[in-house]
């Protein structure tokens, strides 16, 4: 047996190791966000960034060029915070779904929730559903809920079980992606189509503070709901009946947590498009560091998800000069090999 198996987690029961992990992830996230604000076509020194933030947050009056002030505050900081919120929310959603559905492959992208949200958003954006009353996010949210209900019903009709829901999710994703493509090819003009396609692969361009005001509270509320149910999620380790016999109100917990997941996914997809792999890979990486207990796993997921997404955004902006890659491309290009590595590290004897 390999050493990795007898020592499953890097951070064990030592409180100082947990404290150090918490402190270092918070510092790292702060550093990544500063980096994300500094790096770009116009590079801005970290000191200028700090001054611009202080000017806006604390009413300080450092002398700065209006351009620098504007780039830092109105473009790059909002974008970085949006990336952090989306990364945290998607990673949390993955961790919740993997525990509730007892399937290591569960994540919003695989289960078709993201695809449903995309269809909903595109229906509002191109077909004009809701006569201007429905916002893009509301459309995405409704799409996410419809997709999730449909996939759940299909899985239940196919006999339930953890493998069924993945198969149902594959079917649901195909259906909603087809619907999205149908709407785009039949109704969108060329410019809309290009915009939609970029957005479907995930894009942080055009993020404004209003988006952050939506996404950050949703991520925070989702995190708090998940943390409140951390022990209930642990109780699902050996299945639904085992959880119920431990006194968990199984149906209520599932509805609340699946609702929170759909809400988080829908809110993020409505702003940044559907970004795959974060929800799948981050929870596995986090389990590798702190183990399977959700009391530690959920905050770790949120932090690593946020850091990963901010880093992916930086990479998407600098890897090709004068061009921005869709962030979904970056998360998949880094996420897939990382996932392979985790699978390899956590391999068990046949």
């Amino acid at each position, binding site marked *: 047996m390999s050493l990795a198996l*007898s020592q*499953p987690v890097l951070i064990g029961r030592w409180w100082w190791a947990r404290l150090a992990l918490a402190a270092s992830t918070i510092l790292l996230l702060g550093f990544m966000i500063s980096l994300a604000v500094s790096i770009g076509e116009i590079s801005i020194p970290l000191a200028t960034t700090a001054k611009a933030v202080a000017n806006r947050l604390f009413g300080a009056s450092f002398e700065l060029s209006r351009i620098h002030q504007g780039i830092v505050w109105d473009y790059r900081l909002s974008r970085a915070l949006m990336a952090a919120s989306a990364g945290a929310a998607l990673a949390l959603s993955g961790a919740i779904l993997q525990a509730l559905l*007892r399937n290591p492959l569960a994540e919003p992208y695989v289960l078709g929730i993201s695809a449903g949200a995309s269809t909903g958003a595109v229906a509002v954006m191109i077909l004009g559903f809701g006569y201007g009353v429905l916002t893009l996010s509301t459309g995405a949210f409704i799409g996410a809920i419809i997709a999730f209900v449909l996939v759940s019903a299909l899985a239940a009709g196919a006999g339930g079980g953890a493998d069924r829901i993945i198969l149902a999710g594959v079917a649901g994703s195909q259906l909603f992606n087809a619907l999205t493509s149908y709407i785009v090819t039949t109704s969108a003009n060329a410019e809309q189509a290009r915009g939609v396609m970029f957005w479907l692969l995930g894009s942080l361009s055009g993020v404004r503070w209003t988006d952050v005001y939506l996404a950050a509270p949703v991520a925070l509320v989702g995190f708090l709901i998940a943390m409140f149910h951390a022990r209930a999620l642990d109780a699902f*380790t*050996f299945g639904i009946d*085992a959880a119920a*016999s*431990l*006194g968990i109100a199984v149906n209520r917990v599932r509805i609340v947590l699946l609702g929170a997941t759909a809400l988080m996914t829908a809110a993020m997809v409505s702003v940044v498009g559907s970004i795959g792999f974060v929800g799948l890979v981050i929870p596995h990486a986090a389990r590798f560091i702190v183990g399977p207990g959700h009391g530690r796993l959920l905050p770790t997921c949120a932090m690593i998800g946020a850091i990963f997404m901010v880093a992916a955004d930086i990479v998407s902006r600098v890897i090709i000069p004068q061009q921005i890659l869709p962030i979904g491309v970056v998360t998949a290009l880094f996420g897939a090999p990382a996932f392979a590595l985790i699978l390899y590290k956590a391999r068990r004897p046949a």
Partner: protein
Amino acid sequence: MSVSVSDVYWSAGNTMIVNGISIEVSPGKMLGLLGPNGSGKSSLLRLICGLRKARSGVIALGDTDITRMPRLDIARRVAFVEQQATTEMQVTVLDAVRLGRTPHRGPLSPWNLVDDAAVNAALDHVGMRDRAHQLWHTLSGGERQRVHIARALAQMPKELLLDEPTNHLDIQHQLEILSLVARLPVTSIVALHDLNLAAMFCDTLAVLHRGKVVAAGAPEDVLTEELIADVFGVRAFIECSAHHRRRHIQYRLD
């Protein structure tokens, strides 16, 4: 009575699975549930711990009707060990046993000394204390069953329900698990397939057939050649074992 079930009915779809069952268990005793596959043993256990709702009839724990008990109160009193429950997660023995403390902890209350003591005592009972940090998927079937029992004991139950705990275990582990359960200071209800093991370890037996109790009482009264022929469709020869003084059943092929 520790557990009393009176005239309970439960159906899945149009099929009556539990068809008017009444049984009682005294505190600290071990009741064996016998019966062919599909006779309603698993369903009855799930009804007693509140995982399924009876269509009619009354199930009481102590003096309280379980329909009047919140799920959490039931979980503080009754522990249930399913058949072959497993996980894909990388949990350790300790992680699994600590789950047993779930009904005794609020969503935000920290882990305390009572929890620690309960978990350690449970691990000691099943002899897995020194294996606490071993990973679940490296355990054998018998070890996993012991961990499940430890998880149930960490719940500090008055009643312990076990659904075929000896399934897929070798004979050494079957004997080990049942003598462990027989020694425990709790009321237990155990669904079993092996009639000889039931005769050896249980204080009382109830034989289920097509959702009804067809015989109940002390093993020597319940296990008769006629009953085994009626219920299991097998011809048997029963004698009193010279070794342990309990019933010993031999099967005839002629």
